[in-house]
């Protein structure tokens, strides 16, 4: 296993970099879109809630592998040429947006309505109330499930090898078939995935510790 790591580390690292670029881009984009979708899901207008719910249900209710293939084959059909890596980022983003939105929605529903009323009575606009009163608390409340989702996306990014993106999983397959040492190769890949996710978990734990002030109660 260490032999594989030593002999093939340039390719493995390149694969790992692609994995990180794709997953972290999707996570970051999904964070922004997820927050917006969560606002949509909690809107007081049914006309906004309904399409947002439909989106959430589709991306949460179908396998990610199928979503990848759909995006990859559908876009050229409607005349959009897109590199595999971009199709991969797009799909993972659309997928994690749904999951992150659901995490944020549940967080938002835990903020007591009275806190929002207090903000509105102080003249703070609905938008500023979301930005300054609701979301800072929601990020604290949802950090554990959010960390989970980030790790899930990182692991699910291994599926993008099916649309020929040479990320860590695909690189490992290539090395395995070349060296005839599949077990050692995949163990090496597992070690790399694990290392990245442990670092992410540590960052999350650090953030959780560092947070000051209380949380919504009642």
């Amino acid at each position, binding site marked *: 296993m260490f032999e594989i790591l030593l002999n093939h580390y340039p390719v493995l690292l390149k694969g790992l970099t692609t994995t990180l670029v794709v997953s972290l881009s999707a996570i970051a984009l999904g964070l922004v879109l997820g927050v917006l979708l969560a606002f949509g899901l909690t809107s007081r207008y049914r006309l906004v809630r309904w399409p947002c719910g439909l989106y959430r249900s589709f991306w949460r209710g179908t396998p990610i592998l199928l979503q990848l293939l759909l995006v990859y084959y559908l876009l050229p059909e409607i005349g959009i040429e897109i590199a595999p890596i971009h199709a991969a980022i797009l799909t993972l983003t659309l997928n994690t947006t749904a999951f992150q939105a659901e995490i944020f929605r549940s967080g938002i529903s835990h903020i007591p309505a009275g806190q929002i009323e*207090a*903000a509105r*009575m*102080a003249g703070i606009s609905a938008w500023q109330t979301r930005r300054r009163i609701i979301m800072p*608390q929601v990020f604290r409340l949802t950090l554990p499930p959010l960390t989970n989702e980030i790790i899930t996306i990182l692991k699910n990014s291994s599926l993008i090898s099916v649309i020929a993106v040479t990320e860590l999983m695909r690189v490992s397959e290539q090395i395995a078939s070349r060296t005839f040492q599949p077990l050692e190769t995949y163990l090496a890949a597992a070690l790399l995935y694990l290392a990245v996710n442990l670092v992410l978990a540590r960052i999350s734990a650090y953030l959780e510790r560092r947070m000051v002030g209380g949380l919504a109660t009642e």
Partner: protein
Amino acid sequence: MPTADTLSAPTPTRQKAIVEAHGISKQFGELEVLTNIDFSLAPSEVVCVIGPSGSGKSTLLRCLAFLEPYDHGSVYIDGQLLGYEDRSGKRVRTSEKRVDEVRAPVGMVFQHFHLWPHRTALENVTEALRLVNGLSRRDADVDGMAMLEQVGLADRAGHFPESLSGGQKQRVAIARALAMKPRVMFFDEPTSALDPELVGEVLDVMKKLAADGMTMVIVTHEMGFAAKVADRVIFMDQGRVVESGPPSTLFRQPKSERLQQFLNTWRERHID
């Protein structure tokens, strides 16, 4: 349905009222919680609203602040209709922004304080100063400290709400509302969630406010406080105003049987 009600300007009363309501009604589903309420509040007047739980007194206050949209009638803050507007003869809800504008003179204090737990006491007070009035952090902090001083909590400025007592939380909440320089303050059972020994410190702050000429509407169970501080007491039952008048008459010579009964129950509980 909130439509087709009078949109005419409020009839001028003796003094120009800060808050005025005409015939407001409110239903929660089938249940009518407010029935045809008229209300008027003159500058510097302190009105206490009393009544059994479920009598609609909190709902009345929330309707006057448009935290609950009223169904019928009209509420005017400083002569401006709150929450609705006339659009080609039809009554429609105004934008949230317009609601904010009209009720800007109103400050509100809640039974459960509703401080923002991720902000310190001082930040709770300065948040709106910075976001709404556009003050710099430094200017807002100066104003905020003055407000905390006023409620006797300058030494708790850097504390988060979780480390404050109930009475302290409520005083921070009062400072938070006062920071926006309201012309009228609404209190929704401000001491009902407090341990008995912490009620006094909150009532003291409110007494001081009243003495300084603040216009106040207070929904409360504190009869002693109402008797001492109120200019007028309103007794509500089953969504209606049963009786109202100066506390001396209302508490000593209650006319309605319902109020007599209410006061007797209260005395039995508090004097034994």
